[in-house]
């Protein structure tokens, strides 16, 4: 019966290379061929792979006639299974090839035959049908419930592995942040996510990266203890809300509160936190390292039941790595030698400034407006103002992280200054609000202020 057919996963003991499998193929002229294959490799629920080490009849046959039939024995019972296969393609690089190759090399080196056993390719076959062979043995089958599938990697685990590997390659904080949101989306389906960093002296969190929102909201702030994200931050614990009520939507809450307490002017200086209009499920996970809050990872979904324990677990694991990565990459103070000043296309256009941009600094709250529109404030605001005035007064356009750290007016703390994240924040806000003026990386610890427009500066000192 169709439903009684074993699944490929059920055959996991057969894929361990304990008992060789018989593989029959057929040449185009109709001559059958059969050979023992030391190991058939499980690829996924509908594919297997066979190692191709030597040019042989099997290799030639399946390229003429892709049909093949494997007979495998379960080493625990010696029960037999037939797999009807269709040769699909051959891989000579990639994850599958590498893992098969490494295994073969290890065996070969063990046997002192490194040159003889070399994987040329992994031949991948589609599994068309699996039959348990009846009347083969009197030995009772192992009940399905006793068949552990621990040899097959769960999809989530595999995705986590991929994510960890890729995040581990991040060279800069901005890469790490953007890549982690992209991978959370692509590998796990978290389409709406944001990362906030903690500004503990201010008891605030500010958004440093987001994905899946019409407004990216970088620079938006939320108090520690405020809303779902703020509460989870204060508790240093992951918090999940399913089927949430509208009134709990922290995005709106933060904005409404600002409006209610300080009026329109304050709201103009608030960047709204990214929020999904119909958010029905949210998870906020703290990014903590050695007990210190670094930031928050938050996701949302319009689906009330989208988030369960699985999602909590995945995000908690990702958050752990993210926290370590942020901590590590934020600490990076080494300066590299300046890289060649490659001018971006926009920079080349700077020869003919098309318009002007007026930046205004409000000393009262370290706030910078561009052409009357709120841009940024606090430490990133002071950094921008410093860069703009140095460029005006000294004609400089290249700067280093080190000089900013030495600049007491900026008010960076001596340790854990988050300078890198503040520069990311500033860069992203400028991309959004005044793309004609940019901060361009010039190697590690160095950057340049580039402008395609004439810059005018103004200051307001009164309260």
């Amino acid at each position, binding site marked *: 019966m169709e439903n009684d057919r074993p699944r490929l996963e059920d055959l996991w003991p057969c894929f361990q290379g304990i008992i060789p499998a018989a593989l029959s193929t057929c040449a185009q002229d109709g001559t059958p061929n059969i050979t*023992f294959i030391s190991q058939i490799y499980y690829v996924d629920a509908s594919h297997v792979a066979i190692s191709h080490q030597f040019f042989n009849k099997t290799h030639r046959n399946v390229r003429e006639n892709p049909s093949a039939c494997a007979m495998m024995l379960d080493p625990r019972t010696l029960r*037999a299974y037939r797999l009807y296969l269709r040769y699909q393609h051959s891989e000579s690089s990639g994850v599958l090839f590498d893992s098969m190759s490494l295994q073969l090399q290890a065996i070969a080196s063990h046997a002192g035959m490194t040159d003889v056993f070399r994987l040329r390719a992994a031949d991948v076959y589609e599994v068309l049908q699996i039959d348990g062979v009846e009347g083969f043995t009197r030995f009772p089958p192992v009940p399905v419930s006793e068949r552990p599938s621990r040899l097959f990697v769960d999809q989530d685990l595999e995705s986590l592995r991929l994510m960890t590997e890729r995040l581990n390659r991040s060279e800069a904080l901005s890469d790490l942040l953007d890549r982690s949101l992209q991978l959370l989306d692509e590998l796990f389906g978290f389409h709406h996510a944001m990362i906030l960093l903690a500004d503990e002296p201010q008891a605030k969190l500010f958004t440093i990266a987001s994905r899946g929102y019409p407004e990216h909201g970088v620079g938006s702030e939320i108090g520690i203890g405020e809303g779902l994200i703020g509460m989870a931050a204060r508790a240093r614990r992951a918090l999940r809300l399913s089927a949430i009520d509208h009134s709990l939507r922290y995005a709106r809450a933060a904005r409404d509160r600002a409006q209610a307490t300080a009026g329109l002017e304050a709201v103009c200086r608030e960047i709204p936190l990214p929020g999904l209009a119909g958010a029905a499920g949210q998870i906020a996970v703290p990014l903590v390292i050695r007990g210190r809050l670094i930031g928050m990872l938050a996701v949302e979904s319009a689906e009330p039941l989208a988030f369960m324990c699985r999602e909590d677990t995945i995000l908690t694991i990702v958050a752990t790595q993210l926290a370590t990565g942020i901590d590590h990459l934020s600490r990076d103070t080494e300066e590299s030698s300046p890289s060649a000043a490659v001018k971006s296309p926009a920079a080349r256009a700077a020869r003919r400034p098309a318009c002007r941009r007026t930046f205004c600094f409000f000393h009262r709250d370290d706030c910078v407006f561009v052409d009357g529109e709120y841009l940024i404030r606090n430490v990133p605001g002071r950094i921008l103002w410093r860069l703009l005035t140095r460029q005006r007064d000294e004609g400089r356009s290249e700067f280093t992280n080190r000089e900013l750290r030495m600049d007491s007016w900026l008010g960076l703390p001596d340790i854990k200054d988050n300078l890198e994240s503040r520069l990311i924040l500033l860069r992203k806000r400028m991309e959004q609000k005044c793309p004609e003026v940019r901060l361009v990386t010039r190697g590690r610890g160095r950057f340049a202020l580039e402008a395609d427009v004439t810059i005018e500066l103004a200051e307001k000192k009164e309260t």
Partner: protein
Amino acid sequence: MIPPQVFDLLHTGVSVIVGTRDSSLMPESSRAWGIRAARDRASVTIFLTEAVSQQTLRNLRENGLVAISCTRPTDHVACQLKGRLRTIRPAEQADREYSAGWHRDFIQELVAIGVPADLCEAWITGPALAIEIDVTEVFHQTPGPGAGEKV
């Protein structure tokens, strides 16, 4: 003609796998419960059960083409015979005794490489059909660079 060293190999408790194909060139794999080479070294008899080898028998009756691979589990010495069906008949007393002897030898081989004897003893080797095959070609199949060469 089966060379003497292959003839000897076939009578040492080898694992016997059988490859055939149908009219659409879809291959079929099966296991035989023993192989016996004729004294004239021109043919072999293999033992198949209907239950395990339904499609193999159908293919044999349809086109007669067969590949038989024999491997000695303890040292992987192996060969492949290509041939054509001569006859299919129920196994007789002498065939049953021969197959039982092969089964004992094969169990010894498997036990030597760590397979529990009770598993091998549980195989259902009868009632079998005796399949006589005219051998047309013989190939080396011991793993390694020389595998696939014609003997």
